[in-house]
């Protein structure tokens, strides 16, 4: 029943999406739009399959950068948020900064980072992704650890619970949904940052640089094919974060009620 319901719900947006592509294809044909202005979806798909191996290789490069940055940034963000929740003074110093940094496109810093390492190094891009993910995770998880109902804290104290027990039994379970929310934001952001970082120099092996170089050579349909690859990579990361969330919430519920 639930499956049927979900399928039925996904039908309208699917029809809309297909309709949009058909309209696009039609517009290119009818108005005879030149490929350098707008490539037809059929041409893009053709390019996508013709260059599949190259697109996959470029996706692997960008995807690896995004993935490593995502993992490193999440670990660093979680660790820092524990410190922030423990030491109020640190939180007062750091939180406004983290919030501000979340609101500006700090990935332009990669240009500076590029200067610090060798020209072929992937490290600047990975550091950049790490930084972006770090601040997203930090702000959210710190909120989850500290914004606990005062009733819950008073209750735990009335049960003579120590700070450590309050952390384990109240703050961490409270912060888990915040962590997964931040991952849902951070996962696509890590892919975007990995692409955009490639615009600022370094080796020309990732999706981002391939898109720019194809456009520079007026190979528009091919550039679009790489954009499609970028979209798929972003979706993959988003899908993984959602799977993680579902798995974790089920696992958490199980653990709490079986031990």
């Amino acid at each position, binding site marked *: 029943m639930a499956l049927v319901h979900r399928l039925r719900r996904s039908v309208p947006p699917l029809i809309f999406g297909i309709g949009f592509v058909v309209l696009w294809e039609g517009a290119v044909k009818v108005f005879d739009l030149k490929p350098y202005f707008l490539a037809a979806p059929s041409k893009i798909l053709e390019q996508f399959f013709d260059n599949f191996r190259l697109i996959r290789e470029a996706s692997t490069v960008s995807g690896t950068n995004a993935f490593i940055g995502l993992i490193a940034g999440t670990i660093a963000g979680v660790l820092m948020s524990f410190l922030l929740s423990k030491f109020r003074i640190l939180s007062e110093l750091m939180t406004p900064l983290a919030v501000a940094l979340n609101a500006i496109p700090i990935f332009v810093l990669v240009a500076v980072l590029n200067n610090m390492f060798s020209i072929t190094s992937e490290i600047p891009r990975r550091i950049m992704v790490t930084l972006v993910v770090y601040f997203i995770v930090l702000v959210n998880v710190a909120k989850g650890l500290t914004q606990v*109902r005062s*009733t*819950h804290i*008073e*209750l*735990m*104290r*009335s*049960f*003579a*619970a120590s700070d450590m*027990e309050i952390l384990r*039994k*109240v703050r961490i*379970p409270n912060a*888990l949904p915040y962590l997964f929310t931040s991952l849902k934001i951070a996962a696509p952001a890590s892919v975007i940052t990995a692409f955009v970082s490639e615009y600022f120099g370094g080796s020309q092996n990732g999706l981002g640089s391939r898109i720019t170089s194809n456009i520079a050579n007026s190979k528009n349909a091919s550039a679009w094919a790489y954009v499609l690859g970028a979209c798929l990579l972003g979706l993959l990361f988003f899908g993984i974060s959602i799977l993680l969330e579902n798995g974790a919430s089920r696992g*958490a*519920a199980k653990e*709490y*009620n079986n*031990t």
Partner: protein
Amino acid sequence: MSAVNVTAASKIFNKGTTKQVDALLDVNLTVEPGEFISLIGPSGCGKSTLLRLIADLLEPTSGTVTVNGKPAAQARLDQDYGMAFQHAGLFDWRNVAKNIELPLELKGWDKEKRKSRAMEMLELVKLPEFAELHPWQLSGGMQQRIAIARALAAHPSILLMDEPFGALDEMTREYMQGELLRICAQTSTTVVFVTHSIPEAVYLSNRVVVMSPRPGRITHLIEINLGIVRGEATRASNEFFHGITAVREALRGTRGDHVDDLDQAAKLVTRNVDDR
């Protein structure tokens, strides 16, 4: 030995600053074992502060608080009391049974013992079939009954309650009052109960403590003689109305802007604590 003994306790927040608040001033209160005491008064009278001094969630600025003959801090560490709040405060990530087991987990009980005690508590609050459900699947009244079950899980001798029925509708509220009296009689628990509701205070209590604000202090102690067994008939009885009237008059006396009738103010003096 009295269950709770508050001697000359004061609580001043932000002492010495412009934001200084005299939440409680020189409060004395003794609660005997098995007694049901309500604290009532307008906002800012310090009734919740007094409850938190007894619970050792706040420390008095001066004066002493003992619970079961020990300093309040020791009583808290020994889990001599259980506590319930206006917000039931159940944990959404734990099912009902696991919520009730929480204080036992913190005491280091083993799994089997916790489980059987949780079931025992669920029987006590008449919700045994809800053990596996999660808090959000329960109504407000049911959540509050689970919160009471949790507060009493470790069999403390005292129950401290901060407006536990304040968010419930009137019908549920009256039902909960009856249930609370039954549970406390069954477990011979001493209760200190903070409320805004005059009928609630009168219906539940052996004594009603009337407080007034700025600075927070106790102005009246009113004995309620409704007997041990209370039910629907109690709510229609003359004694119940007498109790309500007495508390209401005492409360009026605590609000300067309402005491424009000097005669009435004079009458109130006869019931004043200081004259006892």
